[in-house]
């Protein structure tokens, strides 16, 4: 279990790093078309070979995370700030605030996230920041919900009463004892889950096409779609992005679950 979690964390770190570094990477590395070396297998010069237009698969694979890492970080930040604020307020104060938050959460959650995001992308265009904002808003109810439940249960717990009796102020209790000590792992798990979801979202949009990243800009999704049905001599071009998606989603899920397990213990 431990080594798996370590590997998962390393994978996530690398993907995030690649995504951020990719923003500054030279453009022509991934777009230079060379029909002479189309569909070549792995070699020293091209670690994973080339696709059917002769572009280096390894480079495209490494730079593709830039399509989703920045939106994912935006979405995670937005959902965490909004969700934790709403959930904490609702859980700690209860009453009308709680019912309003719960009501809004139920209403937002009744529209499937994917449909909501698709509508947003249709209206505002499929730039990364739209994707990030829409996913952040769509995820806020989920974050608010878990924080709300946790805080609500904890507020009634004996140790909060004891802390009050010790003369601790409500701000300190809420910010430190409730949120930081008791909720950070849970929120971290939600954040990782959202990161994985955004990867899936972006690659799905790019794979199907019409929204998301479009050629020649690489995304793991459109790399798959682009090589599909081409019968190139280089199967790496087809399978590498699929494996990359799978491993990254797996890593996000695994690390998130480990965080959640520690919370439970």
């Amino acid at each position, binding site marked *: 279990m431990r080594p798996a979690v370590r590997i998962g964390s390393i994978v996530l770190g690398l993907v995030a790093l690649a995504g951020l570094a990719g923003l500054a990477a030279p453009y022509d590395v991934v777009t230079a078309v060379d029909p002479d070396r189309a569909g070549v297998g792995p070699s020293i010069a091209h670690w994973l070979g080339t696709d059917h237009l002769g572009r280096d698969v390894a480079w495209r694979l490494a730079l593709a995370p830039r399509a989703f890492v920045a939106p994912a970080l935006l979405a995670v930040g937005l959902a965490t700030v909004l969700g934790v604020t709403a959930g904490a307020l609702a859980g700690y104060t209860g009453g009308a605030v709680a*019912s309003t938050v*719960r*009501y*809004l959460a*139920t*209403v*937002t*959650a*009744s*529209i*499937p*996230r*994917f*449909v*909501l995001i*698709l*509508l*947003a*992308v*249709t*209206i505002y265009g499929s730039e990364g920041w739209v994707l990030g904002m829409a996913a952040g808003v769509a995820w806020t109810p989920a974050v608010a919900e878990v924080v709300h439940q946790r805080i609500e249960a904890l507020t009634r717990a004996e140790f909060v009463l004891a802390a009050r009796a010790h003369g601790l102020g409500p701000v300190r209790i809420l910010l430190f004892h409730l949120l930081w000590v008791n909720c950070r792992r849970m929120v971290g798990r939600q954040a990782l889950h959202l990161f994985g979801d955004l990867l*899936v979202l972006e*690659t*799905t949009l790019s*794979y*199907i096409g*019409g*929204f998301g990243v479009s050629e020649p800009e690489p995304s793991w*999704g459109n790399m*798959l779609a682009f090589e*599909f*049905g081409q019968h190139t001599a280089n199967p790496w071009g*087809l399978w590498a992005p*699929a494996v990359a*998606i*799978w491993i990254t*989603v*797996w890593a996000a*899920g695994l690390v998130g679950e480990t965080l959640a397990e520690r919370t439970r213990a």
Partner: protein
Amino acid sequence: MFATQLLLSLAPGDPVDLVPGGEEVRAGLEAEWGLDAPVLVRYGRYLARAATGDLGTSLTWRPGAPVADLVWPAAARSLGLAVPAVGLALVTGVLLAWATAGRRSWRRRIVQALSIGPVFLLAFVAVTVLNETTWTLVERGLVARPSWFALPDTASGLRTALAIVVLAVGSGSLAEVHAALEDEIVRIRNAPFVDAALARGAPIAPHVLLNLLPPLTTIMANRTAFFVGGLVVVEKVLLLNGAGSMLWQACGARDYPLAMGLAIVAAAVVCATRLMGDLLRVGVDPRLREPPP
């Protein structure tokens, strides 16, 4: 407390509550046509019409055709995918959870590793592997070219079956249902009343299964929204003809009334499932029928 819960579960069924999704679409509508009528009035009118089943007319899909006429047949076709998929996820989830509950099992690892794959990726892998295998077999002369070859073009029956499986398994669906059910089964099996049933030599399955029903409805109600979202992807990737692919195309063609109508139907389906789940829970669990103490 029960009253608020019931109210909450009922509330989203009312189209007036669809404001968040509506806001964005409304903004888009305005930008597109520069509508001058007061925002709220227009929006109110739209909702009033939507409540009576009139969702406006399509702009580009089939210009002038009532959206409702386009949406309902497509939604019915999609339901033919979603319902079997939900059933498959449920049955497989219960069976797997029953087998693995309370044990560290390699089966769980496999299910979760498989199920974590995104819907589109699973569909892609299934189609690719099937195609490649068939190619190889045909090339070696082992089989005559079967009628369902060239998967993406023909044999919608096979694609439908694939879509159902992919939807039931993909994007962590089966894994989550499995894990949640496992927790519940362990909780119920350790409950004193199951212990007591065991001690009096009674079969425990009826007790465990009935007590599993309330959490089961909760799990499924929570997954419905995901299934509806997954439909869009699965229909698009496997080239099936339903509400999901219609939504995608409506979005692509900027046919806002059609997209909006489909979104409302999706939300209504989700709300209806939640309500049904709540009703079932109240029907099964007598404690929920009591007034609060």
